[in-house]
């Protein structure tokens, strides 16, 4: 009985973790290249959710088609925000960028509220489900997880194989060195920020495939906090680290519940959240570069 639950939760955790991982890559990418913590992360995820909703409910299109669209929306938002604020704040104390990204998040929330209202929406993309004996998984979740893995792989290949990817890597390694190689470092900053936001907004599509309900302008806050924990698990500045961090986080969230449920007089689910923040602190202290050794 217990084993069945545990293994069921484990499987769910992996699937969830893949999506969480993908949803954090943008945050890590931006921190890695620009050393900016995007406190408005969740709001960008929310934008992705609305893009999906719009595609599915208003246009009747498959959520997968929303991925490139959301990505594009993210790129545009990212570029606009980069040139309007971030570019001027790169050398300012981190306080300034923290506040600026937070405000950008609020701006998005309020804008979306004005356009779409504050209703809690959702949609139902029914593509069947698989029964795994210990648990059941809807195909939409599996697609979301596979989509996340695919995007993570794509990003990996892009980083390793393309010219722009190598330029970005070189800026992360040593921005001055990159400059003397003829890399347009300022351009790379803008591109990384835009790409990071693009990934984040696109991850909103995958998260919405995973959880197609509860879509509203203020849904992002929880994702921001989760993304911080995941990013730290993965080393904060490494997008692939973040991906694996997501997997680990999904597992922690879904398995510790089964164990906490044995303690009488407590709320086990809330304790799993406590645990994840405790782990965050411990990792920051013993190994701020993340538990997954980024290559």
């Amino acid at each position, binding site marked *: 009985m217990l084993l069945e639950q545990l293994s069921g939760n484990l499987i*769910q955790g992996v699937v969830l973790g893949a999506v969480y991982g993908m949803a954090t890559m943008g945050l890590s990418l931006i921190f890695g290249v620009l050393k900016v913590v995007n406190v408005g992360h969740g709001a960008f995820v929310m934008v992705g959710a609305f893009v999906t909703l719009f595609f599915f409910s208003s246009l009747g299109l498959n959520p997968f088609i929303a991925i490139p669209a959301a990505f594009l929306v993210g790129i545009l938002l990212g570029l606009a925000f980069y040139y309007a604020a971030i570019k001027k704040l790169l050398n300012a104390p981190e306080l300034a960028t923290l506040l600026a990204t937070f405000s950008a998040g609020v701006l998005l929330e309020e804008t979306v509220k004005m356009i779409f209202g504050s209703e809690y929406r959702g949609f139902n993309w029914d593509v069947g489900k698989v029964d795994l004996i210990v648990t059941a998984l809807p195909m939409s979740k599996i697609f979301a997880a596979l989509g996340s893995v695919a995007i993570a792989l794509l990003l990996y290949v892009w980083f390793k194989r393309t010219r722009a990817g190598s330029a970005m890597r070189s800026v992360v390694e040593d921005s001055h060195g990159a400059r003397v190689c003829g890399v347009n470092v300022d351009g790379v900053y803008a591109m990384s920020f835009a790409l990071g936001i693009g990934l984040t907004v696109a991850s909103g599509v995958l998260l919405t495939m995973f959880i197609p309900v509860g879509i509203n302008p203020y*849904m992002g806050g929880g994702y921001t906090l989760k993304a911080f924990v995941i990013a730290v698990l993965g080393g904060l500045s490494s997008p692939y680290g973040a991906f694996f961090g997501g997997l680990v986080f999904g597992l922690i969230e*879904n398995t510790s519940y089964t164990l906490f449920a044995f303690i009488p007089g407590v709320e*086990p689910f809330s304790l799993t959240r406590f645990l994840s923040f405790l782990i965050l602190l411990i990792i920051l202290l013993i190994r701020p570069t993340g538990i997954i050794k980024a290559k």
Partner: protein
Amino acid sequence: STFSAFAAGHGKIVIGHSACLSGKYAKAGEQAVGGIEACVDWVNNEYGGITLGGKKVPLKYKKYDCESKKESVTSLIGRLITVDKVDVVFAPYSSGLTLRGAPIAESHQMLYMDHGGANNKIFEQGFRYAVQTIGPATSYHKGTLDMVKKIAPDAKKVALAYEDSEFATMVMEGAKNHAEKLGFEIVFERTYPKGTTDLTPLLSAMKAAKPDFVLGGGHFEDGQLFNRQMADLNINVDCLSLIAAATLPAFSDALGHMAEGVMGPSHWEYGVTYSKEAAKEKGKQWIGPSQDEFVSLFKKATGDQKMLPDYHAAEAGAQVLAYVLAVEKTGSTDSDKVRAALGDLEFMSFYGSWDIDDSGLQVGHSMVDVQWQDGKRVIVWPESAQTGKPCYPMPTFDEKKDGKKALP
């Protein structure tokens, strides 16, 4: 109260409201404002104003946006009372914000009417000017339990799974007491934190407890998630009742066939059969627009033809009517007098009956339970308010997917 627009000779009676138009309660706040505006409109244009000292006095509504933040609540209520000199203050949405404003209203001896704070404890604090329109949290799930008891005497095992928040745990407490009183066995009782995006572990554990029916929920987003993930995990029960979320139109929009047969307690629903005639039958005073009038006034007020009022709108609107009646009854806008009149007041409106106890707690209003049947909300409980029979047990998720509707 020393502050009174009417007493000050403005020739108007003013309702002051610190509304949650932005921030986390924006959704409920928007509804409440629409409901109030609809009823103010009715009072002024249909009812002809408030009869006071033989004259018809118009009603005015003055609102500020408190951003769902408590600091703003106090400063705005302070302003409403002392600068705008309103005659009554309507509290903001949520128990916390309602509590925040109460001491200010008390200190100015200003009538303080609560349309969005359901926590019973608000009325255990000894506030003299606080009066509740929304029903107390502990009564949310009474109806569902009564219904199951009545129509399915064999059902024994109930699972309770709520959001870990002040409001939902209070609902759970009420449900638990009532369930025990009715002799149900509670086989599962758990909470999940606010903002959860995956309920799988909790639902898996709940599934293992094999309940006959499930009561739960908390807010809008988690209710949708709850239902959705029960479907994903193929957890079939005879009855599922979720607070807050299940009664909203968005619920079925978001979930489609998965919402079939799901129930939810509501303070008010479109379709309730509260009418002038029913009031007469019960010997109760009636005031206000009919249900359909209310809906159209609401649409006019919000300027949105697609948006329907939900219970947040209805209870805020009913609160306007209660105030109007009480003022007319005492012939004064003095807070002490109106408060006393409200204590004696019993009436019926499109929202149902209204009656408070000495502490100000709403005891007269009973909730209704709605069920999604063939994509529509049907009021299935209490029997006196029914617009249709309940479907029990509801179809399994697989059956629903194949198009089976939750019809009785």
